[in-house]
């Protein structure tokens, strides 16, 4: 019996580690180049933006839509512009909410559906019209 529990424990722990050591996903074209240049965009720390981005986005959406405040901070356009990747063959941007693209990776894993992109544009405007 003990042996069984031990095996189970090992399995569980390794499972957790497997998640901890997820392969690094592509951050997106601009985000990659910012990172490569050694600059830091999310100066509050990655844990803050990871945990708080829904609040930042909701706060910003109300400010912009209802009050006309159009600063760049917390703007969804900014996320899309920075975190999109291009298809190497077609040279076109992948929609940022496509499977395994930046916005989807974490949300897929935690089974959260992202509603932003039923209305918002999913690729940067650059290079398109």
């Amino acid at each position: 019996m003990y042996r069984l529990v031990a095996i189970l424990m090992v399995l569980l722990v390794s499972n957790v580690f497997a998640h901890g050591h997820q392969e690094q996903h592509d951050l997106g074209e601009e985000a990659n180049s910012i990172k490569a240049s050694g600059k830091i965009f999310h100066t509050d720390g990655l844990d803050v933006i990871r945990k708080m981005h829904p609040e930042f986005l909701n706060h910003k959406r109300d400010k912009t839509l209802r009050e006309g405040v159009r600063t760049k901070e917390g703007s969804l356009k900014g996320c899309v512009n920075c975190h999109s990747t291009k298809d190497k063959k077609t040279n076109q941007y992948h929609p940022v909410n496509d499977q395994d693209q930046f916005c989807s990776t974490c949300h897929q894993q935690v089974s959260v559906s992202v509603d932003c992109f039923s209305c918002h544009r999913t690729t940067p405007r650059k290079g398109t019209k």
Partner: protein
Amino acid sequence: MSKTLNRRDFIKTSSATTVGVATIASGITLTSFAVNANENPVTKDKRWGMLVDTNKLTEVEIDGMVSACQQENGWGSEVHSTGDQKPTWVKKLKVQDKATGKITSLPLMCQHCEEPPCVDVCPTNASMKREDGIVLVDKHLCIGCRYCMMACPYDARSFVHEELTDQREHMPRGKGTVESCTLCVHKVDNGESPACVASVNSDAVIFGDLYDPKSNINQTLKKVQSAQIRADLDLNTGVRYSGI
């Protein structure tokens, strides 16, 4: 190149120059702008409005206004919607004087009422009016009930019946929500005129702050005779018409 420029050439040349200037000074212009207009919430000190002179405005220009709006805001290419389902933010309307038979054409869009019935009836607070008088749909809150479409006396609102992609960056639109003329709020917040107004090459349509005594629209409205459509409803519209 000949020295006499026709009008088209002149517009081309002048716009090319403007772009040049804007690029050179872009950093500076943008920064000063952010401080002036975009960082602070809009206030009640302004009330945006539009004046359409139906005597001056030609039908071709009205069609031009409609396509300028489509181009700017990305509506009009919905392939799965039929007839009445198709979104229409602005349309060409013909009104006829019963006595004389005189037909007048005018562009009709959201009139940006001061007392908007669409806001009164909205159960979720999605239909809203900004402090500066621009009436909008907050699509984050809209549940698509379409009460506002029923309440609007101008038939100014549309419901999106199909999934959309490739929206304009500044104008999110999506299935299941209601939309209407935003007075090109994204441009107004940047100090520009709405796309339809800019598409008319004369003063047949003017845009500005109704409250500002120095603005063209305020001064013109003091001089000329103008009307609100369905003035009997007492909604105090932001869009006014002269010549009807």
